[in-house]
């Protein structure tokens, strides 16, 4: 079920009514509503994969108990391995099986051999990368004795499948979200109002910026060989805001919906395009994933405690794995590598203590140059293959002439104009809120009506597209 669908518009008020008016007396009743509605939410996409979520939940619930109760380190490790193998195994099979097979076959062909690679027709379960990481965090945290196991299976099932963030995050930590399922939730007016504000703002970013931009971006990237460098630059610029509007929009809606049920989810984006360097960008972009990798990969690898070379190696590993997490394509790995290369010089200067604090004089320049680096890296992310992305960038840097997709019809020109105006509006709103030292936007309720009308009359409602991060 998509947030921007009629199904969800009917689903949400029904769940809200049942949760607050029918099953509000006991925490177990509230959890039951969350659990059932989450499974219905996910089942709308493909009910068969509900067994996967259930299996994943069951394994981690069981592992958590066993890890916590184990008396020897060996047993603790054994049950942690059970959790890791089953979760990562599912992920590897559904997401990477064909990719590994193709890469294996290609590498043989490179050396002049040919092997028969039988690809499987595997459907990627929506959100598998998100919920497996969420359940894994539980087992690892119990192993690291950061939290204790739970015996409340219903609460655990609800934690893993919590519908607002089930398919595209934020990837919650058990230490933050799970305890919220142990206590009866009481309706909080202020939180619900802020939730509505975030939902509307999320829909604005998704439907007005991302979905409109996707029309132009798709047209440019599909025929990039014929496009002029100006058109290609526009494609890269709009994709930067498409992916931001799409993903941060989803996160805002998820956090907003959770607040309606009096749940707090972590902030996933903090105005990332206002970052002054790549390091800051990664502290503001997809925070739930970058902190996940920091806590469960970077720090266990040794973090920045060892020698400079070891630390650099650790940074590279994290960026490469992070890229690979996004999808079974070398473009994502390459994208991660590029970001590692952008980040390493900054990392070295921080490590050596030579990093200069940027003054206000260069602040705008730093923000602009960071955005340009990020924008060019998105070309790699969006392209079908690495060679496509290199050709795309080459056409820009050599000022190639060619067609301009966005001017090919008056409709596309108007859509481009709508994109620019809405991006400008978003950037101004974010600058204002950052100056007020907020981590999320805030509006007066009356302004929401204006925003709703903007979404209705300028959003891509008929030509809406799926959330990009669903495929991850």
């Amino acid at each position: 079920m998509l947030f921007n669908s009629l199904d969800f518009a009917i689903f949400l008020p029904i769940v809200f009514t049942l949760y607050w008016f029918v099953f509000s007396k006991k925490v177990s009743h509230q959890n039951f509503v969350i659990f059932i509605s989450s499974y219905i939410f996910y089942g709308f996409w493909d009910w068969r994969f509900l067994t996967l979520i259930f299996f994943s939940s069951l394994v981690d619930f069981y592992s958590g108990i066993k890890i916590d109760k184990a008396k020897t380190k060996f047993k603790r490790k054994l049950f942690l391995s059970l959790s890791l193998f089953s979760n990562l195994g599912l992920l590897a099979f559904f997401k990477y099986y064909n990719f590994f097979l193709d890469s294996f076959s290609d590498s043989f062909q490179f050396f002049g051999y040919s092997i028969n690679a039988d690809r499987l027709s595997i459907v990627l379960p929506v959100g598998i990368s998100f919920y497996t990481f969420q359940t894994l965090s539980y087992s690892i945290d119990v192993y690291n004795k950061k939290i204790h196991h739970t015996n409340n299976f219903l609460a655990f099932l609800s934690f893993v499948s919590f519908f607002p963030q089930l398919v595209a995050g934020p990837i919650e930590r058990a230490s933050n979200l799970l305890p919220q399922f142990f206590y009866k939730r009481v309706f909080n007016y202020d939180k619900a109002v802020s939730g509505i504000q975030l939902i509307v703002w999320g829909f604005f970013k998704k439907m007005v910026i991302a979905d409109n931009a996707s029309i132009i971006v798709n047209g440019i990237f599909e025929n990039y060989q014929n496009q002029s460098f100006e058109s290609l630059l526009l494609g890269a610029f709009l994709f930067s805001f498409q992916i931001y509007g799409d993903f941060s929009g989803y996160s805002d809606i998820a956090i907003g919906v959770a607040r309606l049920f009096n749940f707090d989810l972590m902030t996933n984006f903090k105005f990332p395009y206002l970052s002054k360097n790549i390091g800051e960008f990664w502290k503001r972009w997809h925070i739930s994933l970058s902190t996940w990798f920091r806590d469960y990969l970077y720090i266990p690898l040794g973090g920045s405690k060892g020698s400079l070379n070891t630390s650099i190696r650790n940074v590279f590993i994290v960026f490469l794995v992070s890229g690979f997490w996004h999808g079974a394509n070398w473009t994502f790995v390459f994208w991660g590598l590029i970001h590692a290369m952008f980040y390493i010089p900054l990392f070295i200067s921080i490590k050596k203590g030579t990093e200069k604090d940027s003054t206000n004089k260069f602040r705008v320049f730093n923000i602009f140059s960071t955005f340009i680096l990020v924008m060019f890296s998105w070309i790699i992310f969006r392209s079908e293959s690495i060679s496509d992305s290199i050709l795309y960038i080459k056409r820009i840097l050599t000022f190639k002439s060619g067609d301009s997709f966005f001017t090919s019809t008056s409709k596309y020109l108007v859509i481009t104009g709508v994109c620019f105006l809405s991006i400008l509006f978003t950037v101004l709103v974010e600058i204002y809120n950052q100056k007020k030292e907020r981590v999320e936007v805030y509006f007066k309720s009356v302004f929401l009506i204006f925003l709703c009308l903007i979404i209705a009359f300028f959003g891509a409602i008929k030509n809406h597209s799926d959330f990009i991060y669903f495929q991850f």
Partner: protein
Amino acid sequence: MKKFIKKIIIYLSITLLLGNLIGFTANYFLSKSQFYKSSFLVNAFNKGEKFDYFIVGSSRGLTTLNTNLIDQKLNLKGVNLSMDDTDLKTQFLMIKHFFNSGFSSKYLILTLDESHFKSTSLNLGNNDYRFSPFIRREYVKNHFDEYEKNTLGIISNANVNPFFNYSYYNFELFLPAALSVIKPNFRNKFDAKGNYSYPNSGVKLLFEKNNAIKQKITNPLVKEIKEFLKTKKCKLIIYVAPYFNKEYVFDTHKINYQIINHTNILNDDLKYFYDATHVNNEGRNLCSKLFSVNFISLIKK
């Protein structure tokens, strides 16, 4: 909780109210414009105006026959009401719209596409929304009631709730309506007589020798159109525009339709084609001239 729900209901109601206010305003301006063919017909010509003929069809009707040329050659008065990406039932709606708007004509030239020789889909057409400024008219409302499958009845209910319609089709309806406020006489890719042509760009199509296909026109909708025209004292002439690499032959004795068959009139000469199903400007000029000859001979019969 009470306060929250109250606030939600109030804000939703205000949004719906303002949205509908904007929707009704947009509808008014679009209905007074010449942006789409449906409002062009109503606003560009005087009510009660009599035409010798009018052309209805899809993009093939729009780009194959030039009424300027035909009128000049035959000293007649015609208008091209064809709309791109429309099927026969939308074209029937245009025919009804023509007569119900107070116009009359001696002949209807129905440009029939091969996909409608036998039947027509019962789903709402891609460009049917262009009639929504006239949703208050009974025949338009009936059309949407019959074919719109959407559970919300986005266009069907636009007479009472235009907000959803102008929101769903915002780039197709709302922005043209906004443009119509400033430029009410702006036409969306057609001239003052409703014509449009594709450029003489080069086209690469592979020629394969094919035999002519014998074809019958059995679509019940064509019969229905003919019956309807009878009541309006208008005669039906079916025109089949050229196809590249395809020829249809119609048995005119078994069917009671007058047909001008141009399926292979251009002898698959690429210089007249824009693509396999559309002629270019040069092709349009030739087809219009040849059509004039066929048309006058039918009129004189």
